[in-house]
């Protein structure tokens, strides 16, 4: 079979874009956005039900909608988008062709069928309201598990297409030296994805057999232990992917280069080594596991993956600061930040994503993942508060900002509603940050997650939550609606731009064949990169970022010990 080696040269960046890869990136990204639309409508219904004043849906519909919301957002939106990101990092950033586009289409088809079958089980059959986590012994229809398995197999094939592309690029010498940092981050996400999907297969395949009666019993603790090897690690794919996107946007908007390749790549390596231990985060309040097991695993050995995130949290804004200072914004601590392009949604979305992920998602995640502190947080609405800060403010918003770059460069369309686009990251990012924060507040007061009615209507005995908890839930709903408006704006802008936006044409544009035009391998100068120029203060090239990082650390330390203080006031247990 002839290999399609046709490329077009991107006039904006000079990258070569492989045509079959481009089509695959587009279809995966568009499908992701459709999943986001479905998940967004469901999100609105969830908010309007948990807002007790409105209390829109009856209990059974609420749990169905909540299940479908979790799956469409956390699995289908994010992973379709991530596949597009993998193809982008493997081909465009390396000037390479995509390995086996046919297999990539097979992967896409399997993922699409899997997503449809799963949604059929949840929303059309309506007998699979088992939540994203589908804990046994509560059972769903077999098509629920089958859909997830098909989707996972598709995603796994996509991962191997990406890995194959790296091999092709290396063999065909499409780049010199090492792959770029962003591609390295994508590779990290891909490696984590492979063992995540393996964990998913180990638990979902037996559960599928259980659902059709071939296996009589699945232990609930074993299920939770293995399932979270899939459920939590899949969130670590997102972390690696969106950190890679942060670096990419810093490079695209500012021409920022990593402060040092060694540190940033080392931090990604720590993710690969330690992130998968975090299955334990979800098992800290479970019987049958020892404290030693819990402490070692929940802390990623010794918080080494947290260390990695703290490093990225410094080096991403640090790289931006260095780039800005070298451009002349070298005054004081924060001129580089003040003079940043806050009206450009590619940057503003990325920066809000970075801050929200660190301050809200990161800190709360460590609280919940501390063995004893988990006792006062487990299964309260604090938990969704945390992961909306990580996965929505962090991952989703980072992906949204990347879209604003991808629409003109890959889809070749002008962005429609640029005025609205300017505001979209603020509406979505700040709305979602408030939403997360108020959920954490309500959770601290004991409000449970996945719960239809905090007034316990119809129960024999009722618990009365304090008025503050009710207030928190109302504020959560209002800020949630702001985020919904921001999400709707994103959908409007992207869908209109992609389908009816003005086409960008380049005069003299022609396709080239990579083989005829391959860059002659240049041997890299055997030099050590000099350190940065005469910028910053006191030997610190990025003093502003350092001050921000110290501010972050102080909030982290204070909040950490506030929680221990709170824990020390509850009933003694052992």
């Amino acid at each position, binding site marked *: 079979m002839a290999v399609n080696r046709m490329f077009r040269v991107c006039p904006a960046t000079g990258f070569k874009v492989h045509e079959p890869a481009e089509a695959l990136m587009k279809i995966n990204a568009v499908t992701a956005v459709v999943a986001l639309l479905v998940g967004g409508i469901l999100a609105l219904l969830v908010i309007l039900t948990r807002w007790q004043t409105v209390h829109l849906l009856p*209990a059974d519909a609420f*749990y169905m909608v909540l299940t479908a919301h979790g799956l469409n957002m956390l699995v289908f939106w994010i992973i379709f988008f991530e596949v597009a990101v993998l193809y982008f990092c493997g081909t465009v*950033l390396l000037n390479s062709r995509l390995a086996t586009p046919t297999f990539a289409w097979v992967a896409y088809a399997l993922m699409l069928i899997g997503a449809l079958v799963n949604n059929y089980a949840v929303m059309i059959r309506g007998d699979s309201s088992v*939540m994203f986590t589908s*804990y046994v012994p*509560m059972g769903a229809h077999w098509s629920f598990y089958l859909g997830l398995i098909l989707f996972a197999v598709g995603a796994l094939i996509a991962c191997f297409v990406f890995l194959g592309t790296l091999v092709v690029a290396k063999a065909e010498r499409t*780049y010199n*030296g090492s792959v*770029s*940092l962003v591609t390295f981050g994508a590779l990290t996400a891909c490696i984590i994805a492979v063992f995540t999907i393996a964990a998913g297969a180990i638990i979902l395949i037996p559960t599928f057999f259980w659902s059709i009666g071939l296996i009589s019993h699945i*232990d*609930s*603790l074993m299920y939770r232990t293995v399932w979270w090897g899939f459920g939590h690690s899949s969130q670590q794919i997102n972390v690696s992917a969106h950190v890679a996107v942060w670096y990419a946007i810093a*490079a695209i908007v500012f021409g920022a280069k990593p402060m*040092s*390749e*060694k*540190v940033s790549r080392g931090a990604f390596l720590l993710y690969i080594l330690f992130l998968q231990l975090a299955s334990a985060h979800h098992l*800290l*309040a*479970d*019987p049958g596991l020892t404290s030693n097991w819990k*402490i070692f695993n929940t*802390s990623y050995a010794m*918080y080494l993956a*947290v260390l990695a995130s*703290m*490093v990225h949290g*410094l080096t991403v804004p640090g790289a931006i600061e260095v780039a800005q200072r070298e451009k002349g914004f070298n005054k004081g601590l924060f001129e580089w930040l003040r003079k940043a392009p806050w009206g450009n949604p590619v940057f503003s979305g990325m920066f809000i994503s970075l801050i929200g992920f660190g301050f809200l998602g990161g800190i709360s995640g460590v609280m919940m993942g501390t*063995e*004893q502190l988990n*006792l*006062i947080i*487990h*299964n309260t609405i604090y938990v969704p508060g945390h992961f909306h800060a990580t996965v929505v403010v962090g991952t989703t918003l980072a992906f949204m900002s990347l879209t604003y770059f991808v629409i003109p460069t890959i889809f070749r369309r002008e962005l429609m509603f640029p005025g609205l686009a300017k505001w979209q990251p603020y509406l979505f990012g700040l709305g979602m940050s408030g939403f997360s924060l108020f959920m954490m507040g309500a959770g*601290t007061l004991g409000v*449970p997650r*996945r*719960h239809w*009615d905090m007034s316990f209507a*119809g129960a*024999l*005995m*009722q*618990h009365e939550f304090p008025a503050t908890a009710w207030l928190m839930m109302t504020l959560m709903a209002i800020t949630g609606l702001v985020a919904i408006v921001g999400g709707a704006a994103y959908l409007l802008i992207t869908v209109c731009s992609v389908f009816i936006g003005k086409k960008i044409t380049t005069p003299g544009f022609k396709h080239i064949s990579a083989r005829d035009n391959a860059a002659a391998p240049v041997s890299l*100068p055997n*030099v*050590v*990169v000099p350190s940065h120029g005469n910028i910053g203060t006191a*030997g*610190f*090239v*990025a003093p502003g970022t*350092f001050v921000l990082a110290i501010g972050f650390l102080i909030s982290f330390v204070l909040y950490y010990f506030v929680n221990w203080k709170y*824990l020390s006031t*509850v*009933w*003694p*247990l*052992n």
Partner: protein
Amino acid sequence: MSAILPPAAKYWWKQPLDRVEGTWIVIALTWCLIMFFMMPYWHVYGKQNLSNEAYRTTPEVYQKKTQEMVDKYTVRKETAQEIPVVHPPAGSDVYLIARLWQWWPILELEEGKTYRLHIMSMDWLHGFSLQPENINIEVHPGYEHIVTMTPTKADNYSIICNEFCGVNHHTMASKLYVVKSAK
């Protein structure tokens, strides 16, 4: 050279660390180690640690043990369903059943006394959530979890379920009474 391009230098790992990165890594690592050692520290010096004591058992055996306790120590019955309220002696083994969609029986404990609270589910997963203390423990079917618990203040507490357990999940709420010690 930027993050989306291959590193310009062949031996990129030889580039020296910036002072800002080096300093931050040392600070961050120190903090990570403090957080790590905080957990074992609390096992030794803290009072709130989740017990590691758990046994595999069956719903029938667990039901029988709970029934024995209820037969011995029931002091009254509450609600339309006549759920027994049990006042077991201080220091004793106390049994609580979680099932769709009920906690059974209702417990009455004494302030400042320590109890060995056994919790197990008869069917699906449930979540023991003691309010407003906000102590939350996962409840599995087949695993009898034993938590030593010392109520500190007399009051009427609630136990709600915070692990999704089906359409009437929100009705799975009960009381836990803590009373002043008899003498």
